[in-house]
């Protein structure tokens, strides 16, 4: 009730200003209704999740609020909460944000926050649905002039595992204070940062230096190194010392592009996970591979990733990737993966994509993992197409052969209407009790107009790990009906 009053007050305030000053109001809303069964539920239940975001902009100022709600028959899971607010000022030289904001330092060795657009999470423990993001509640200011910029950050990063129904002492256990400055000259940039973390169990100070730029039109580089400097010496790279090193080099020769990256991370999980060093493991869009993505272990991981792109004169593209990640926790785990993908247009009409992948993943107990698949988009007339996709995966787990299959059929009319029916089959003993299990689900998405769309899912959805926009998380199995409405105004 208190939240509702706050919202009404804020909305009234924004509307009065809008009327007086002829400025802008915009926002979006995501409404998701589910009726079905999730793991742990004895029967199908109805739930509703809604996230409304409203922004007001006048000249250099902006204000915004986000209201999140979840309602189910189980009272303790429900909440209505003003989960974010923001007051912002931007000018040529100064930006100031107070409230909830997203900020990343460098490539994320010290600090990374993010929002996964449209993703709604449900954790098996709390069973409340909530938006998937990791913001910082506090303030930040950035000063920039010509080639120099510096920013100050103070706040409490969100631990997204806990839904808004939980108190902030669980959701935001860490306090960070950080400064980051960078200077650019002749296509080179150097930067430095210091971050202090405080929580109920400790206080620690970390520093970071970074250098990046273009050495020539064909070579660019990025390096970043970070270390705990409060409890360990600058030159201490022992097994106990927290440090992280990332190096990336890019080469481009006409149609050929190469990205090579290396990492060495040790004991480098800051607080409840306010940082996220680059994983250097390919994030696949293919279902069987996305689910098998190696998840970075910042406590101890070394390795590299090389990706090669080649575009042929007919605009078909070849992508090759090789990744190695080594974890040493007393026992050594070596993940390696070889991936190839070829994307081309057949008979000047139909889009075809084929891929093959070989990996060894001792962490997930997946030996000799072979994955392959083909995606066809058959063009019908000028504005519609039929899609037929198939993916296959096999590996050995605990001396037993496992198989996963994904078959999908779809129809697309412009960007207005998308229909898909997907069938998955697995005999993975970890999820099927030694029996073959199938999941069949269909999705229809209709874009009513550029501002509004509706999506309906009906059937079964296979759970497991999923990776999106560089972040990996768990998705629960679902059987039922799900309706999603998204609006922008």
């Amino acid at each position, binding site marked *: 009730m208190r939240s509702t009053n706050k919202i009404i007050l804020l909305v009234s305030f924004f509307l009065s200003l809008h009327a007086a000053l002829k400025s802008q109001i*915009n926002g979006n809303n995501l409404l998701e209704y589910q009726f079905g069964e999730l793991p742990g539920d004895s029967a199908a239940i109805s739930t509703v999740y809604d996230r409304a975001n409203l922004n007001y902009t006048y000249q250099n100022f902006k204000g915004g609020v986000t209201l999140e709600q979840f309602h189910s028959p189980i009272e303790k899971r429900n909440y209505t909460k003003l989960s974010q607010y923001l007051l912002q000022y931007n000018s040529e030289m100064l930006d100031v944000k107070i409230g909830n904001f997203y*900020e*990343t330092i460098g490539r994320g060795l010290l600090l990374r926050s993010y929002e996964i657009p449209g993703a709604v999470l449900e954790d098996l423990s709390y069973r409340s649905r909530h938006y998937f993001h990791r913001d910082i509640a506090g303030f930040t200011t950035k000063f920039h002039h010509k080639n120099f910029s510096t920013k100050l950050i103070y706040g409490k990063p969100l631990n997204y595992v806990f839904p808004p129904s939980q108190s902030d002492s669980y959701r935001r256990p860490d306090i960070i204070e950080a400064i980051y400055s960078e200077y650019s000259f002749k296509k080179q940039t150097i930067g430095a940062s210091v971050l202090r973390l405080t929580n109920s169990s400790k206080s620690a100070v970390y520093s970071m230096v970074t250098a990046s730029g273009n050495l020539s039109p064909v070579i660019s580089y990025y390096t970043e190194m970070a270390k705990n400097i409060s409890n360990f010496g600058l030159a201490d790279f022992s097994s106990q010392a927290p440090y992280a090193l990332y190096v990336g080099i890019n080469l481009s020769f006409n149609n050929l592009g190469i990205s090579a990256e290396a990492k060495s991370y040790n004991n480098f999980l800051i607080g409840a996970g306010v940082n996220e060093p680059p994983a250097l493991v390919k994030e696949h869009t293919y279902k069987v591979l996305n689910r098998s993505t190696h998840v970075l272990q910042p406590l101890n991981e070394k390795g590299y990733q090389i990706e090669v792109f080649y575009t042929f004169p007919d605009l078909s593209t070849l992508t090759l990737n090789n990744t190695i990640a080594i974890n040493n926790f007393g026992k050594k785990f070596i993940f390696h993966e070889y991936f190839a993908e070829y994307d081309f247009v057949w008979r000047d009409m139909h889009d075809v994509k084929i891929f093959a992948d070989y990996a060894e993943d001792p962490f997930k107990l997946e030996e000799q993992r072979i994955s392959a698949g083909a995606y066809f988009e058959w063009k019908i007339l000028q504005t519609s197409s039929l899609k037929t996709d198939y993916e296959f995966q096999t590996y050995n787990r605990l001396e037993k052969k496992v198989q996963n299959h994904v078959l999908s059929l779809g129809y697309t009319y412009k960007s207005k209407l998308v229909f898909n029916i997907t069938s998955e089959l697995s005999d993975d003993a970890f999820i099927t009790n030694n029996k073959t299990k199938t999941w069949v689900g269909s999705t229809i998405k209709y874009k009513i107009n550029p501002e509004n769309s509706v999506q309906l899912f009906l059937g079964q959805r296979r759970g497991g790990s999923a990776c999106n926009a560089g972040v990996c998380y768990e998705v629960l199995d679902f059987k039922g009906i799900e309706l999603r409405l998204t609006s922008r105004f």
Partner: protein
Amino acid sequence: MLCAILASIGLNAQTVKNFELKDIENSTRTFADLKGEKLTVIDFWATWCKPCNKAIPELNKIYESYKEKGVEIIGINCDGPRSVSKVAPLSKTLQIKYPVLIDINSDIKNELNLMAFPTLILVNPEGKIVWIHEGYVTGDSQIIIAEIEKHLN
């Protein structure tokens, strides 16, 4: 109720304010420098987004056809730390002809309240967003061209 109130007061079109980002050559670029005389097309994309990559050759063609008519295209890449290293080599092998800027925090996308990849917006000379298009499938390039023509006239 909220929607009704908003509708009753009438909403102004969203405006793209001047912003500053680095391009794939590590040079700082601003929207004011890059915007088109008559229309600016901004494509928000990511390397891991397959429809985004599929749209790029078509956007290249549109850029070549319309740049002399006062239309500029700006690609804003929103790859996070995990995949941002692939932006420059992929952009070069795809031979993207228009400027590609890097927004590792998705600040501009969030500022404009956009929710999907790819999202393409048309911006008029006053900075107002006159059209938004989410996703990319076969045949969308004709829709994009039709909207450019509509707003050019």
